[in-house]
């Protein structure tokens, strides 16, 4: 039997997505929160590839290509923000972000 039901793969990506979501809720280190966002984006990518294979349509894999580009840009900007935050607050704790100005 060389076959895995599509719902198993989708359920797996839902589990990974919600592990990342739990990390965003539980963790206070902003670097780990960014990593959990990357986990959630990866879970979404796996859903796209699964449907691309299920529907025999390449649009899903093209979407994954663009999502990976956007995720790379997002993490670059996010880490730039973390560096700027650490420079002003001397901390990477999300609870310390309370003011809109320095």
């Amino acid at each position, binding site marked *: 039997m060389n076959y895995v039901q599509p719902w198993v793969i989708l359920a797996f990506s839902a589990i990974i997505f919600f592990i990342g979501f739990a990390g965003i809720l539980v963790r206070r280190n902003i670097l780990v929160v960014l990593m959990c966002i990357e*986990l959630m984006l990866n879970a979404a990518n796996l859903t796209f590839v699964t449907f691309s294979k299920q529907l025999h349509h*390449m649009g899903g894999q093209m979407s994954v*290509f663009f999502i990976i580009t956007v995720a790379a840009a997002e993490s670059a900007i996010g880490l730039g923000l973390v560096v700027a935050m650490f420079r002003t607050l001397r901390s990477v704790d999300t609870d310390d972000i309370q003011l809109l100005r320095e």
Partner: protein
Amino acid sequence: MEINPAFFYIFAGLAIAFSLLVVIKKSAIASAFNLVCVFFSFAGIYAMMDAHLIAAIQIIVYAGAVMVLFLFVIMLLNADNAAFDMHPIGRGKRLVSASFVVVMAGMFIWVFKNTTYLGPISNFSNANVEAAGGNTQVLSELMFSEYILPFELTSVLLLAAIIGTIAIAKRKKPAALLNGGSAAKGGNAQ
């Protein structure tokens, strides 16, 4: 899906275990290295699902570029700094968020299990893709024909990201230094 169940379950189990470690581990460095393992497991699953180009991009961009960026920032901010010792959130909050997440994941799995899936809606079946030169060639030809506009817009997005990152992370000169510099220049003129 025509993929080997044994290898799928191995990769899926590894990915779930390592992503749990990403959340649980106290140190940001440990989380980053566990995240690399998650990315490699995902690349294995993509390769098994005949998405070869996506698997390669996953390794090059995620496990390569993005993780190097993460590790670079963690090292730059000095991982041994006292600021990294988080005071953990309370047991009650942790329990509430964990149970919320479990309920939501269960709901999603139930929905995915009880949905009827559409059959093929286009003709990119496995045999057709193989006959047309493989996944990478088919995807590349689509990228430069049907999806050329989003592909070009991607370059604009990356340019905006470069400029934005430089503008955000650039060290601003302190006001005192700026004033001192202009005063010195004025002194020279006199």
